[in-house]
């Protein structure tokens, strides 16, 4: 499995879901949880299986103004691929 395409529609993998722990959002998966904050959390919240990677990048580019969209696409791809290899995300 390679990095996501701009047209990929990422979503949490089967059996992985959001929950709250110690008043903070976490993602639960079979072996544990990820405490996820900041940009990572923002990206993951956008992964609803509907939005494409390209659309996620547009949302982020708008939010972070000056950032170069090509750079954001690259960073988001790396982040999503890492979670996909952990089998927490699919696209």
């Amino acid at each position, binding site marked *: *499995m*390679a990095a996501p395409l701009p047209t990929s529609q990422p979503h949490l*993998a*089967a*059996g*992985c*879901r959001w*929950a709250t*722990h*110690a008043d903070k959002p*976490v993602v*639960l*998966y*079979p*072996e*544990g*949880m990820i405490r996820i904050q900041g940009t990572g959390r923002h990206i993951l919240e956008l992964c609803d299986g509907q939005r494409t990677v390209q659309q996620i990048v547009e949302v982020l580019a708008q939010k972070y103004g000056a950032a170069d969209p090509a750079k954001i696409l690259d960073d988001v791809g790396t982040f999503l*691929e890492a979670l*996909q*290899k*952990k*089998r927490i995300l699919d696209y």
Partner: protein
Amino acid sequence: MTPNPLALIAEITHRCPLHCVYCSNPLQMVAKQAELSTAEWVRVFEEASRLGVLHAHLTGGEPAARADLEELIAGARQAGLYTNLITSGLGIPEARLPKLVDAGLDHIQLSFQDSQDGPAQWIAGAKGHAYKIVLAEKIRQLPLAFTVNLVVHRQNLDHIEEMIEFIEQLHPERIEIAHAQYYGWALKNREHLLPTPEQLDNCMRAVESAQTRLAGKARIDCVVPDYYARYPKACMGGWGRRIMLIDPSGRALPCHAAGVIPGIQFDSVREHSLEHIWQESAAFRMFRGDEWMPEPCKSCDRKTQDFGGCRCQAFLITGDATATDPVCSLSPDHHLIEIARATAAAEAPQPTWLYRASVG
């Protein structure tokens, strides 16, 4: 301040149709009439969730031997827990599977004994391999996380590559290659289970190669077994630090094997709240922190990583539960492990197994 537990291991029954020679259940098992009721388990799940537990691992024995498994899953899920079912698959007819999903099951971990029917039956002391394959196909069609677990040991490691390829065909997201651990029934059968150093090297190479090949398809977990490691495992993430195990009769233990250590009184969820047991019970406090530690642990800078290793293993091998885990290369008792390894490296006789007993 004691951190809250993160995981609850709910050993809901010791009944099991299999008799695996490496079973981690205690030699003294709990009979059906002593098991907690549905309502008692549901209360345990609610208390666990309030205590900060995130994951409930429903295990056994074979958890599907309980007719109320669906209710237990629903109870755990409604309490807010992530629900994980650790099963042999036997006792789950195909028609029961969707009911488990409807009850709120998040993840299923299905165990295999081998890639081949004959050897699987020899290890499990019962038939079931062919049905597990059928069930795996059904699981894959459901919205669940799916892990396949395979226990590896001297008798099957010579075809580790074939076993990984077999599991790959079942399309799980996760593959757990678990080296047998020597407690309970496995300790009784250790001389026929402990791998040779060559088998272990080959296994780790095969796993690494499969990890590369399957990257993005399945995640493969496999750790070097502690008999061959330089330092002990951080057993249960430290005694009374992260995990609480409730046995079928409601006794709360810090791990699967703690019942072997003489002189510990394990409190029951029938008499105390989980919070009280976690915070106050003598059993959970006994090896918490480093007060109890002998040298070389006490002054070792690894003590915050491995917590002195496993108390049950220390007791089972040295007769002293407060000893440094003998698998540690720094332990004064480490020669006992070296002898076991040397025995494994020698020519092995045809195994005569002590099969895990049945429980009524």
